[in-house]
Each structure stands twice: as structure tokens, then as C-alpha cells.
């Protein structure tokens, strides 16, 4: 498949927010690691990377071994090193925090080792001996890719079906560019696919272009990893004006194409989660002068990470707390010109009579993404709750031979959770197939 990205993508202006280590820096940091026994960082990584071991390998100048320790648990370890919210995962649990000393920079060390592997072309893994079993992974994001790689190592024939043109899912189209640009995710996909024998069908949507019955007639097991749906939108007056768009949609455009925001004077991002926080920082990075974060709760009520908001503030983003959108105004060309907000109290209840209008020529809606659970209609036994696919701990749905993982199952977490769930489901699929199971009809 052609995974070429345009050179003049808008995201090209971004530099890495966290700089890469030099050899010396990496070794110095690695030697600071206490090499804890039964370490909390391992527990707090959803994929259970053996952190002390990989760090000791860096200290011992066994970088190739360090990278393999990472990939053994997390085949997307290269991008996770850049995109994981380590402050709330491994780094947050480092025992140094209890000593009031700087925690080990696990993400940066992970990046050091995995980047070295990519640069040197170390691929480590080979496909297992053919089992004659066929598995399909629906969706080409982190969950499916992790599942596909594990299944391939176990010797199954694997097909990945992706409705879009690029693989990597939101890792390619959604990650803030100062953490990782799209080309990096694409090269990770290529690296991962170098195991060989993973068949890619892109530009194909399930179930409209290929039905569940079609899949069941061709494959022995199905893994569903199609993530979340489109941005949720607002049905308010003039909310369909030009210049009002979903944040995830906007971010994807910025990452994949040469959009131009030079004429934007006032941008507002509506929401208080991590997508909103990424979006405000990205707008500032693209050069938009005035960027407002409008959220219906207060600062401490935001679901987005505090460390991300702290960065956004220093980058000049202005908050408008307790502001719930009420209506949009548009100019003669039906382009958005301002947003009027209803002011809210501490309990996110409207304060009667208090509103506020903020001028805007670009408004991004970061108020959530739709859930795709309903696409599974036709898979008998599979349950959907609140749009999420219900599974057991191993990722098995109620439908025989059908598994799920990633955002479509957990409702939207992080890349590392998608990888963990994809990997875990692959192990369960392997046991299922080796025990003679099949979803074939």
C-alpha cells in the first residue's frame, strides 16, 4: 500500500517537545535507575514492559538488547516512548518520587533504545511456523497492529482491514505533532510489517463494504480494533457554520495535509479533555495568536492531564472556565464569527442570566468522539454497552471467535492500552485457534 505523506504537511513546523538523549545522557540517566526489584514502573505500564531490565541494558551499553526487552512487551514501544502520558504511568510511579528526587525519565530512555533499533534496522522477530489458521483484524490502529504482529509471530495468517488510506490509526492521524509526527508512526507501521505475511486491505470499511458474514466465511477468528467514531458535534444555532469543526478531524487534516491557518485570528477550542489540550497547543504551535480553551467546568475539573494544561498555559493559551456553548454567530459568508457561552456554577449548572460572547473565526469541538459499537450488528452474542464492545478480561466478546481491543472496547484510553489489549487478545485468539476453535460459518 502507498503510505506516502505530503512533504508540506502543516505539522511540519513542529519540533519534538522532549529532546532525544545523546549516548552519554542516556547512560547517565540509566545509571541513576535504582534497578528496583518487583518495580512499580512495570506494574504501572499497561503492557508490563520490564523497565528496570531495559534500563540496565542501556547502562551496560547493550542497546539492542534494551530495545528488544521493550518490544517483547510492546511492539509499538517506539511510539509509546513519545506519546505515552508517562507522568501518570511509569514515571509517575518511580520510587524516586517518594524521595522527592527527580523520577527516572523512562520515556526518554525508551525512545533512546527504540530509536536506535529503528536507525540500525534491528527487527528481531520472525513469523512463526504456519498454523494454517486465518485471522482478520478490523481497523489498522495500534490495537489491531499489536494483535496482528503477535498473531503472525505465532504462525497465523493475518489480514488487516483499514477503511482509511493510512495505517496506525490515531497514532498516525491524532497524536499531537510535538510528541510525534505522522511519518514516524508510518515508519513504525512499516517496521512492524517487516515481519512479513501480514496482508493489508486498505480503503475497505467493515461491515458496509465487507460484511461480518463475509469475514466469517474467510477467517477462523476476528479481532475488532476499529477505535472510536467521528467527533461529536453540537446542534446549536449556527453550529454548522464554516470554521466550526471537530477537533480530531482538524488534527488529522493538520497532520496529513497542508492546511493554512494564517488567516485565523481568534480560535476557540471547546472541551476539557486531552484532545482539547492537544488542540490548543497545536493551534498555538501553528501560529494562531489568540487561542481560548472554553470548558464548562473549572480548572480542577478538567479530565485532561494537569501537566499538559500547565504547558498550554505557558504557551499562551487563555482559559474560559465554566463556559458552556449556547449559540454560534456567523458572518455574511456564513463563516463563524463568535460563540456565546452560558456561564456555569461549581456544579456545572447554568447561572441564570450570565452569558459571555467570545469572537472566533475557528472553533474546534473537542467534546468527545462517537462510539462504533453499533457497527457490530449481525455478530450474534456480541454485546455492546454505551457504544463499547463488551469483552471478558482476555478480549473475547460473546460471539464465538470474535475478540476486541483498544478504544472500541475501553471507550477511549491511550495507545499503550490499545497495544496491551490487542496483544492480550492475540494470545487468547492463539489459544482459541490451537484448541480447535473457529468462527467460520
Amino acid at each position, binding site marked *: 500500500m502507498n503510505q506516502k505523506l505530503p512533504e508540506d504537511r502543516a505539522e511540519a513546523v513542529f519540533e519534538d517537545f522532549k529532546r532525544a538523549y*545523546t*549516548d*552519554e545522557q542516556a547512560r547517565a540517566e540509566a545509571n541513576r535507575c535504582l*534497578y528496583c*526489584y518487583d518495580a512499580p514502573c512495570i506494574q504501572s505500564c499497561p503492557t508490563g514492559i520490564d523497565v528496570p*531490565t531495559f534500563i*540496565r*541494558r542501556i*547502562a*551496560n*551499553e*547493550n542497546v*539492542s*538488547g534494551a530495545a528488544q526487552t521493550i518490544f517483547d512487551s510492546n511492539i509499538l514501544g517506539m511510539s509509546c516512548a513519545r506519546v505515552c502520558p508517562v507522568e501518570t504511568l511509569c514515571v509517575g510511579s518511580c520510587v524516586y518520587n517518594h524521595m522527592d528526587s527527580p523520577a527516572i525519565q523512562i520515556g526518554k530512555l525508551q525512545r533512546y533504545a527504540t530509536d536506535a533499533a529503528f536507525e540500525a534496522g534491528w527487527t528481531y522477530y520472525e513469523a512463526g511456523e504456519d498454523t494454517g489458521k486465518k485471522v482478520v483484524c478490523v481497523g489498522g490502529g495500534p490495537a489491531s497492529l499489536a494483535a496482528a504482529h503477535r498473531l503472525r509471530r505465532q504462525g497465523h495468517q493475518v489480514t488487516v482491514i483499514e477503511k482509511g488510506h493510512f495505517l496506525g490509526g490515531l497514532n498516525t492521524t491524532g497524536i499531537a505533532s510535538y510528541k510525534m509526527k505522522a511519518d514516524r508512526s508510518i515508519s513504525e507501521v512499516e517496521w512492524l510489517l517487516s515481519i512479513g505475511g501480514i496482508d493489508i486491505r486498505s480503503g475497505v470499511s467493515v461491515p458496509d463494504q465487507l460484511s461480518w458474514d463475509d469475514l466469517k466465511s474467510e477467517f477462523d477468528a476476528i479481532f475488532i480494533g476499529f477505535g472510536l467514531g467521528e467527533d461529536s458535534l453540537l446542534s446549536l444555532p449556527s453550529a454548522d457554520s464554516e470554521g466550526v469543526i471537530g477537533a480530531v478531524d482538524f488534527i488529522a487534516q493538520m497532520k496529513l495535509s497542508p492546511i493554512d491557518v494564517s488567516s485565523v485570528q481568534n480560535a476557540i477550542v471547546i472541551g476539557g479533555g486531552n484532545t482539547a489540550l492537544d488542540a490548543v497547543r497545536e493551534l498555538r504551535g501553528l501560529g494562531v495568536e489568540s487561542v481560548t480553551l472554553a470548558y464548562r467546568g473549572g480548572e480542577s475539573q478538567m479530565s485532561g492531564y494537569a501537566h499538559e494544561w500547565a504547558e498550554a498555559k505557558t504557551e499562551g493559551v487563555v482559559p474560559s472556565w465554566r463556559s458552556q456553548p449556547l449559540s454560534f454567530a456567523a458572518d455574511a459568508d456564513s463563516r463563524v464569527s463568535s460563540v456565546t457561552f452560558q456561564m456555569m456554577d461549581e456544579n456545572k449548572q447554568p447561572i441564570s442570566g450570565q452569558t459571555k460572547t467570545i469572537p472566533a473565526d475557528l472553533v474546534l469541538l473537542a467534546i468527545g468522539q462517537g462510539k462504533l459499537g453499533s457497527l457490530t450488528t449481525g455478530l450474534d452474542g456480541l454485546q455492546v454497552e454505551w457504544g463499547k464492545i463488551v469483552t471478558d478480561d482476555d478480549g473475547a466478546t460473546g460471539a464465538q471467535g470474535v475478540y476486541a481491543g483498544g478504544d472500541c472496547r475501553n471507550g477511549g484510553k491511550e495507545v499503550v492500552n490499545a497495544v496491551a489489549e490487542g496483544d492480550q487478545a492475540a494470545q487468547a485468539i492463539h489459544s482459541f485457534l490451537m484448541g480447535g476453535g473457529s468462527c467460520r460459518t
Partner: protein
Amino acid sequence: MPDLTSNTAGIISPNPFWLASAPPTNSGRQIIRAFEAGWGGAVWKTLGQPIQNVSSRFGGIQWRGQRAAGFNNVELITDRSLDANFKEMAEVKRLFPKHAVISSLMVETKEEWKEVIQRSIDAGADGIELNFGCPHGMCERGMGSAVGQEPAVNKEITSWVKSYSSIPVLVKLTPNVGDIVPHGLAAQAGGADGVSLINTIKSIIGVDIDRMIPEPVVGNKGSNGGYCGAAVRPIALHMVAALARDPGFNIPVSGIGGVTNWRDAVEFIALGSSSVQVCTEVMLRGYRIVEDMIDGLTRFMVEQGFQTIDEMVGKAVPAYSEWGDLDINFESVAKIDPDKCIGCNRCMVACHDGAHQCIHPSTDGGIVPVVDESECVGCNLCEIVCPVPDCITMVEVDNGFPEGSWNEHLTTGSTIRPKKGSHGYDMP
């Protein structure tokens, strides 16, 4: 995949990594866990008449933020009964027939030697290690380093042991001697199949200056102990290499002293060790360190094209030369990379006060010091103190002089290049 199998004087182990005789090999249960973690061999905690230990027993050097850069102990040999130890040894060998179990022994009389050797053989030990090295407590009782420091006694006891032993015998040497070579030769003359070295170095790890008591403090006194851990590696490497290159010494060596990882192990192997033993790093971090020792060594061998451990044993020995045979006409000077320099002037003060006064302040008002290459003796001090990687490099100078050593100069009168950096030392 390279083959990591190691053969030290006929003692075969799946890899060259052994636990040294010390607390990590105190009991069968520990050794079983160690073998499960990947260790290829274990030298049992020295057996003899069980002793009584003191507390505390250990001291660590905290050096500029690094804990236990050096380590010392006043521990003696096993404090457990011979019956228990030999029973467990037999059990370990039953469970791990392919791993090397070496029985470390230290007793006094001929009869006792005969008995403990036979019991080791009966327990299935793959070899015997004679502890002629312990530098505290045991030597005062006429054992340990008291034996190791006397070549004649060393040779005699070794020959007793050999006459009773049907399995390979290694003599563990003490570093507490002026020159290791006569001691290695004495063991060889006594019939030893190999030697292992080093045991710990006589030391006082520090003094509690509030209480004015040497450390580690036992009640209200302290005693000298044995120094080990990363800090002793250079001493151990030299002793291993001194034996390896001695033309009269030709039995295998098991290298010990400050091994912390696979790189250290490769250094010992390159200087002539067929296996390496580890104590302190395991005491500090656990058996699990062997995991990267195996992984790192394997990758190194693949990268360098070595198929077997034997191919690496002694690889660096031919290049280990006498000072007098070094090429005295080889010349290098320090170069500072102006793009990397951060202006700390560490090189300048080091050269001024500790070397040859040839690094000077920048003349153009910038931060980068200037090396006077006509005076630089190429000593490396500035490169060693520079905090920036690859900022100062030692660059070879083509001075037109042919290769030639001091020894050649003495014997044939060959030309040597003029001295640099000895600029008169004019007093003000």
C-alpha cells in the same frame, strides 16, 4: 547463535558466569534460584569447620553519590554444618547436572582436607576451589591468605589436595601479595588444574569520625576486612593478565573481582579468564543481573563474529606489553572541538595544576581554551576530565620518527623523539 559453553580446567558450565564463593552461594536453595536465573556455575560458600560471624559484617564506599562503588566485609567462611552443605550440594547437582558446582574448601590438617574433598566428590561437585585467599580472621588462624601468601605452603597443600582429588582443582589466589606470578606458579607446581583470582583485598573501608572507630563498626571496634566490588576490577584485571602472559604459567584462570556486567566479563575473558565469578554485584542487585550478562555477551559475540568463548580467551593478552616495549615515538596531542566546548575550563585547570601547563585561555575572548600543541605531551588528563563526550580527542601526530621503544633505545641506541612539556620550570 554463538556457543557460550565454558570450560575452565575441565569444569564445564553452560555459560562462563559463575557465582563466587560468598553469601550468594551460602545454601542450596539460593544456588537453585541462581541457576534458574541463568548462572552457569556456582562456587559454594567456603566449607570448613563452621565459624561464628560478627555483626555488622559489611561496609560500602559511597563515592560522590554512588552507593557501594567499593565494598568490604569481615565475614568468614560458612557458619553452617558440613552435613547440611554437602546434602544440599548433592541435591543441587541432582537438579542441575549440567551446571558447574564447585566446592570451595578451607581446612587445616591433611586428614580434614582428605575428608572434605571426598565428601565434595561424593556430593557430585564438578571441581574444588581452595580458598587460599581470605584476608581476615581465617589467616590469623593459619588458613586463607596465610597459605596463599607463602608459595611453598601453597604448593604443598595443593599437592595434598591433588593427591586426594579425582576432580579438577582450582587454587583461589589472594591479591595481598607484591607479585601474583610466583603464587600462580606455586599452585601450578603443586599440580593445580587452574587458578581463580582475586579474593578480596585487605582494607579498612572507612572510619566513623564521630565515634573514631574504623568501619564496619562491630559494637565499639572495627577491623580490617576484604575489599571487593567494582572498585577492585583494575587490580584484578592486572593480576589475571600478569599470569596469562607469563610464559611459565599455562593453566586456566577463572577471573574474579569487580565484575558487574557483560562488558566487565569480556575484559576478564580477553585477558585470559575462561570463566568469571561474581560476588558483590549480585549481593547489591540480585541474581537477575546474569540475564543481561548472557544477552549482552551473546550480542557482542554475534557482532564480533566469535562462535565460542574459547576464541575470546586471552584475545587482548598479546597486546599487553611491558612499558619498555611501548612505542615511545608515538605522539598524540589534545584537540578541543570548539563546537562542543561548554567553557567549564576543567581541562585548563587540570593541565595547569596536574599536567604540563599547555592549555591556555582563549585569546579571542571566546570560551574555548587553546591547546599549545608544541608543548602538549599527550597525557590524556584533559580528555579524562572533560565532561562533554568527544569534545577533547587525542589525535595522532606524524612526527616523522620511526616506531621505537625505550628498550630498543637502550639495546640498539635507536633514536627517540625529543621530550615535550618540560619547559625549563623557570622560577619567578
